[in-house]
């Protein structure tokens, strides 16, 4: 699956869809593929203050545990209840219905473009 060009990316394999002060965050198709079938996601609570680079959630597959890193400083304004109920959405639609959290961000840190992220993963 190619990485959508309208998104920003992190080296921890998250994507951000930035809209004004808000950003929707998920993990990339590459990360989902590496994890295998996702069976459990643990997400921060709405209202939680998060700090860039810290672990704010977990994405578990049958075989392993992936950590969700905050891509920016901010506040969680929404979590995807659908993905909590149906974690397989992370695999089936990582850039869409498999989104994880929505955060209100102040200043965005340096993020990767789709091309830069694609180069990072070599795929």
């Amino acid at each position: 699956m190619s990485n959508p060009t309208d998104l920003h990316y992190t080296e921890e394999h998250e994507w951000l869809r930035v809209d004004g002060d808000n950003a929707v965050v998920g993990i990339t198709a590459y990360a989902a593929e590496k994890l295998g079938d996702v069976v459990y996601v643990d997400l921060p609570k709405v209202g939680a203050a998060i700090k860039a680079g810290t672990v704010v959630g977990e994405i578990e597959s049958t075989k392993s545990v992936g950590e969700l890193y905050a891509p920016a400083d901010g506040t969680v304004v929404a979590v995807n209840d659908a993905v909590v109920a149906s974690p397989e959405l992370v695999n089936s639609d990582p850039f869409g219905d498999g989104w994880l959290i929505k955060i209100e961000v102040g200043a965005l840190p340096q993020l990767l473009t789709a091309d830069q992220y694609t180069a990072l993963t070599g795929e």
Partner: protein
Amino acid sequence: MTDARYSPLHDLHVDLGASFTDFAGWQMPVRYDSDLAEHHAVRERVGMFDISHMAEISVTGADAGGFLDFAVAGKMSALALGQAKYTLLLTDGGTVIDDLIIYRLGDEHWLVVANAGNRFAVLDALNERAAGFSATVVDQSDETAMIAVQGPKALAVLQSTIGLELAEAASARPESTLSDLKYYWTLPAVFLGNPVLIARTGYTGEDGFELYIDASVAAQLWVALAGAGAPHGIVPCGLACRDTLRLEAGMPLYGHELTLDIRPAQAGLGKVVALSKEGDFVGRAASEVELPADAPVLVALVGEGKRAARADYEVFSGESRIGVVTSGALSPTLGFPIALAYVHPAHSGVGSVVDVDVRGTRIPFTVSQLPFYRRKKD
């Protein structure tokens, strides 16, 4: 680190879109698409696994049976022609070098199947223990491929595989057809003129077969099995689902439940050590000594919710650390977390409640019966 090793079926796996993982130095399929779908296929229909990384060692000679009786924990000389047995290779101290399946293939011919990661440890131990016996130990791992067909439709798949026929010698066996073949028994077969050993064994908790064939024709056999399996919904299965399947079935995995620090009795495998057999065997004296009263014992744990206890997570009772998880997953079949753990025997009774430290959060688990999953026999 030596170069990665590849199965004789590697190119097929690449064509099937497999993701690969390192397993004991081998690049083996971890999944083809979805490990959950592969897991469910084996429980509900049928799946096929390349397990060519397993080690095959032949033992032949006039003293081969007596040699194996001395070398391993079970009485291999008592096996009938075509019979298989699960057994253990022990140290002098009575701990586990490897768990094995040994097949009797002739009057003076046995086949020892060992885990890939223990190939050389097993070979070294067998060669050392063979001193003084008229027995020959030969490593056949490189030229032997192994394919497992597992699931309720496994029999139907083998029966309809084009080019796969039972050998003439099979007709002399007490159970001379695949449908009559009992669990842990084998029949000789032929595939396109090449000998195949068909064993009714497996590592999934389902009915199924494991097929041993020369590596040079393994790809053709795989394709034939896949063709016969297509009407039954067969899928290729990777090591990820192999692990969740064997865990549900309560089967130990070397390096997790069995190690050089573990005695069989701790793992619930005391009966595999044949203390009633005549004569000495390696590990006998140590195995006759009772376990220390505080030796950790293997227990089955079940949890609620969806968070898995995984290997190496610590087990607590209150603030006391009482053990460690050796394998664990969210059970695809059962829908709740299951795990195997070594715990202090005071907490090993069925119904005991313990806590597992899941990355900083204590989650309650209850000691349960093994296996977690048992197939319905028809």
